[in-house]
């Protein structure tokens, strides 16, 4: 059985995922340089950890679709 590929939907979702990944990369690099430059960076880094966690849960793990049926 062949399934028709939804090219437009696939492109839109892929672009969204790549945008999120770019943001994750940017946050990681900033986080790293803060850690290297600041003496006691714990407080400075916590917002970055929270932001990255939220991006992954919201866009990659689809936590908001937890109680939705189907795919």
């Amino acid at each position: 059985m062949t399934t028709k590929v939804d090219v437009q939907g696939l492109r839109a979702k892929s672009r969204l995922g790549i945008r999120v990944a770019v943001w994750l990369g940017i946050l990681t690099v900033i986080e790293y340089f803060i850690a290297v430059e600041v003496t006691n960076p714990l407080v400075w880094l916590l917002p970055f950890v929270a932001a990255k966690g939220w991006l992954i849960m919201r866009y990659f793990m689809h936590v908001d679709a937890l109680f939705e049926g189907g795919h």
Partner: protein
Amino acid sequence: MALSAGAAHERAEALSRPRANRLGLWLFFASETFLFAAFISARFVSSGTYKPEELNQPLALFLTVVLLGSSISAYLAETSIAHGNRQGLIRYLSITILLGLAFLVGVGFEFKEAIEYFPPETIYGSNFLALIGLHGFHVFTGVVALAVVLRLGTKGHFEPDDYWGVEGVVKYWHFVDLAWVVIFPTLYLF
């Protein structure tokens, strides 16, 4: 269009099954979170924010980028099958597995260095090796699960309206990535 009783039942079940599976998986993630939280808190309780100078921060940054890269390829694999693109599923699952293996090789290298500079007899060393080992084991099981799904995908399993196997394993992979997002600063940056 009216559905027969059998078809309506089948349709209702097809809709509710992923929801039940999803809830079960998130409950599993919740229990896993407690496990990781116990190990992470042990690190802070026993050695505060102390970190040895010999820590290989650039390697950890590289491993983070590799794991984030694997997360986007896992996302693209799920998105591909959701939109009917089986080739994309196979391609991106393969990339995810390769990146997962690269991460494991890096962790192995890190283990070797860690045992040399802060052995398991030291407080920091025991926390470091336990946390890295726990996470590495999760990555390993994720790679095995991804390989199983890849094999099923190449055999023609999964369709745009029925791909729970892909969704489940990809969510697990993102969870492993999420755990690293916390472990990376906990061990290398704070």
